[in-house]
Structure formats: structure tokens, C-alpha cells
């Protein structure tokens, strides 16, 4: 399962139960993010634990962080999924915004590398 454009690449590695996001995500509005949300939801439906690797996601606009927020709320409401976000302490937005997502889902695990 993969979404790839000139700006970004998103794919699922079943072996590591990880969804990777790379590049610059600057889609215009929440509707444009629906396909990515669908990928995340379909993956998380099959797994008790999911890692989302954002380390190489350099830019994410406001609609993108909104989509991630909604995804976290849906996973939290399911109640039986271990969710892990991998971030980079060299990417400024990841050091700030991911902590707020943890407020939505206190059991969310943040790993910085």
C-alpha cells in the first residue's frame, strides 16, 4: 500500500507494522487528506499495534496535522490499539506538535531520534 507523488511518499510496511511518511505534505484542505486517512484507518483496523514513522516528514500543513489529530481520536476511541509516533528532534514541527497529539490520547507513545 503506497501513495507517492513528487512531494511526498506514504507507505505501509506490514513486517514492521509501520506506516512511513516522507517529504512535504501540503495538501489543500481536509478532503484531500481523506485518502491518507483511509490508508491509516485500513492499516490500524488489522493491527493491535501501529507505528507511524514521521522522521523524514519535513513539512506538514495545518490540514495535515488536523487529519493526524482526527486519526488519533479515532484510534483512542477504539481503545485497543497501541499507537506509536516516531519523530525526529531535528524537525521543528515534530518537537512541538506531536506532544499535543499525546494530550488527545495519553497512551500515545512518542519516540524521538
Amino acid at each position: 500500500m503506497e501513495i507517492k507523488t513528487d512531494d511526498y511518499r506514504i507507505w505501509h510496511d506490514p513486517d514492521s507494522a509501520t506506516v512511513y511518511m516522507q517529504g512535504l505534505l501540503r495538501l489543500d484542505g481536509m478532503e484531500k487528506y481523506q485518502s491518507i486517512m483511509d490508508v491509516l484507518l485500513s492499516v490500524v483496523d488489522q493491527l493491535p499495534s501501529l507505528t507511524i514513522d514521521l522522521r523524514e516528514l519535513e513539512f506538514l500543513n495545518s490540514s495535515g496535522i488536523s487529519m493526524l489529530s482526527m486519526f488519533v481520536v479515532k484510534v483512542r476511541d477504539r481503545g485497543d490499539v497501541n499507537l506509536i509516533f516516531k519523530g525526529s528532534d531535528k524537525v521543528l514541527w515534530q518537537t512541538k506538535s506531536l506532544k499535543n497529539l499525546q494530550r488527545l490520547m495519553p497512551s500515545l507513545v512518542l519516540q524521538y531520534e
Partner: protein
Amino acid sequence: MSKVFLSEEDFFLHGSHKTVREDIQQTHHEPQLLTEVSRLREEIERLRKANQDLYIALSTTAEHGDFIEAQLQEVNEQLKVEVEERKRAEATLKALLEAISKRKDDLEIVVQTIMEHGDVMDTQWSQKVTEINKLATLDALTQIANRRRFDEHLDQQWAQMTRERSPLALILCDIDHFKQFNDAYGHLAGDDCLQQVATVLNRCVSRPHDLVARFGGEEFAAILPQTSLEGAIRVAERMQAEVNQLQIPHIDSSVSTAVTLSIGIACLVPCSQSSSSELIRLSDRQLYLAKQLGRNQIVFQSASLQPPLL
């Protein structure tokens, strides 16, 4: 439900009846007796009617009581049902309120996340733009201004000095026999030499609009706005002295055992009929002369676009 067990006969005044009959026998012969009997009969009749009225009133009251009791019972049952329904509605509302409250909390966090994310992305973009601008104007090897930044700054200062009718000086420096230095010590040593020379040259200017740049290869330039030829010569002499103090060995130099500079200086008051390339041309000419005259020296010229500067 209550019952009325009283019969109409219960209300006859038996005792009073018997007493009246005895009274008649005892007073048979007395005329007043008849009157009394008649009065008593009327009294009996009145009492009977009163008795009947009381019976009816009591029956009515009893029946009314039963009816009211039944109604109360019914209302009580309805109230019990309503209380249960209200309790259920209250529980539903409480659950709904909790869900709405949770959703509200979520939305507040999401809104805050989006706002803070927007701010941090602005900062990130801004840092990126600053970094790119810096890279676009900085020489990668020496970390001083590159040729692009030099051209941009020279044009700006040319325009500014034209407006102010102030002198603009340009120093061009060239490391003497740099090709031979590279051949003797290698290109890595050559890069190191360029870095050291660039650092000391950059240290020799301090005013906000002064700029030292790598002009190309082993050539460096210093733009000095609002500076007379004398001032520019003093800066050039400081540059020469600082490079001399580095004492970078140069075995293949014809003029010294260490790295030296040839320097050309031009100074003029710019005018709108000419361009900044004129100042470069003049400085370059002085640099050429410095090399021709044996290197490791400063040659200068005051140009004639405007009245004499010295």
C-alpha cells in the same frame, strides 16, 4: 376502599320511641298529652328526615372518598412512571453531556494543536528561507560573502553613494602565486590558505555597510562605502599586515617565504551616468599594476567621475 355499613333503620331513635309510648299511657287523660304527642311525632318525622339526609350525605362522602382515593392512586402510579422516565432521561442526558464535553475537549485540543502547528510551521519556513538566503549569498569554502552577494551589495552602495554624493572605495586583493602554492602544498592546503586569508580580511572591516567577499578563485574584494581613498589605503594596509602575521609558508613565492597579497584600490564618488562596473574595472587595473610592479604591494587610484576626493 372504604364501605358504609349503616342502614336506614340504624338511624331510627328506638329509645326515644319507647319513651314516647310510655308517656302517652301515663298521661292518657290529659289534653296536653295529645299536643305533646303530636309535637313528638313531628319531631320524630323531622329526625327521620334528618337521619335520611345524614345517610345520604355520609354515603355521598364515603363514595366521594373512594373516588378521590382511586384518583390519588392513579395519579400516584402515573407519578411513579414519570419519575422513572425522568430518571432514565436524566441518565441519557448525563451520558450525552459527558460525550459532548469529551468531544468539546478534543476539539479544543485539536484547535490548539492546529494553531500552534501553524505557528511552528511559519517559524520552520522562515528558518528555511533564511538558511537558503544565507547559502545563496555565502561562499561555501570561506564562509564569507560570495560573488553574488558582492555584486548585489556593490550595486546597492553605488546607488546609495550616488544619492549621498559620498565616496565609494573598492579593494581587490589577490594571493600572490597561489597556483604555485597549490602545486607545492596541494589543493587541501590551498583551501585552508583561502579560509585563513578570508577570515583575517573579514576581520579588517567592521562598519555595518562594509563588505568583504570572495571575488573569485584566490581573489577577494572589500566594498567600503563613505570611505575616502586614504581610509581605504589604511584598511588595505591592515589587511596586508594581518595576512603577513598568519605566516602561511609559501616556498614557491618570488616575493616572500610566506603568503602575501597584491592589492588594488579605486575610490570615486559614483554618479548615475556610470555603473558600478566602472569601479571594478578601476580596482582591477590597480591590482594588475600591483602585480606588474612586483607583487606584495598596494596600488591605488582616485577616479575622476566626480571632483577630486583627496
